[in-house]
């Protein structure tokens, strides 16, 4: 999977490394900004009220 992505990135090894880094950062950003805030309320730490009012 990662080998396939690496082979399909343009440029020489340095450019590929740079693009990979940007891609990784983008994925982490999307996770922290959108995916985790959505998933976190599914965990029980939010239940602090009585009868979920």
């Amino acid at each position, binding site marked *: 999977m990662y080998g396939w992505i690496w082979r399909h990135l343009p440029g020489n090894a340095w450019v590929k490394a740079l693009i990979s880094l940007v891609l990784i950062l983008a994925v982490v950003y999307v996770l*922290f900004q959108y995916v985790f805030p959505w998933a976190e*309320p599914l965990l029980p730490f939010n239940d602090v009220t009585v009868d979920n009012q």
Partner: protein
Amino acid sequence: MRLVVRTVSELCITVGTVIVLFVVYVLFWTGVQADSVMGDQIDRLQEQWAQGGVRPTGTADPGASVAPPKPPPYENGKPFAIMYIPRLGFTWNKPVLEGTDTGTLKKGLGHYSGTAQLGQQGNFSVAGHRRTYGDPFKDFPRLRPGDAVVLTDGTTWFTYRIDKGPYKTVPTDVEVIDPLPRKSGYTRAGRYLTLTTCEPEWGHSHRLIVWAHLDSTQPVEAGKPAALRR
């Protein structure tokens, strides 16, 4: 065959990394965000109060009555007070917002809409996170009878004294935020305060409760109440 094995192992590593990142998010990042959001809320309140835009001070003469003028209804999701609990730390202060929605509780403590307003006859009830989102009520079990819970709405300081708790109950026990909570030991109507959070620390099977009564009030012009002076 080798390709399949490699892809599966890469996927496993990816999932593992995402899980680790999620733990970092829950344990650390929500706290960072909450600290900044709660700070913003407090700044906003203090700005509002500095402009005097909230409400007139009323005609109540200083310290004479325990009954401040009745405030207008709180706006859902908006901060209206700051809470101080010296037992949880001398610098511990959190904004109190109207409502107990998930989104509201990320920004501060939540006032159960439908319960009494601050300082009024009835039961002013507030919920807060035990863990995550800045861990506001992390040290909840350390609260003891006699501890002060101080709130201000910009015009008045309200000092509540804890009478009972921490009391462990189940999530369906809505009675604890009744105007006269049955298990609190109070026998007649009064100006009470209830704090609720989750128990155990990382779970949701129970709730921890403390009850307090309004001990004294003083206008903000009179300076900080004794409970907040070092």
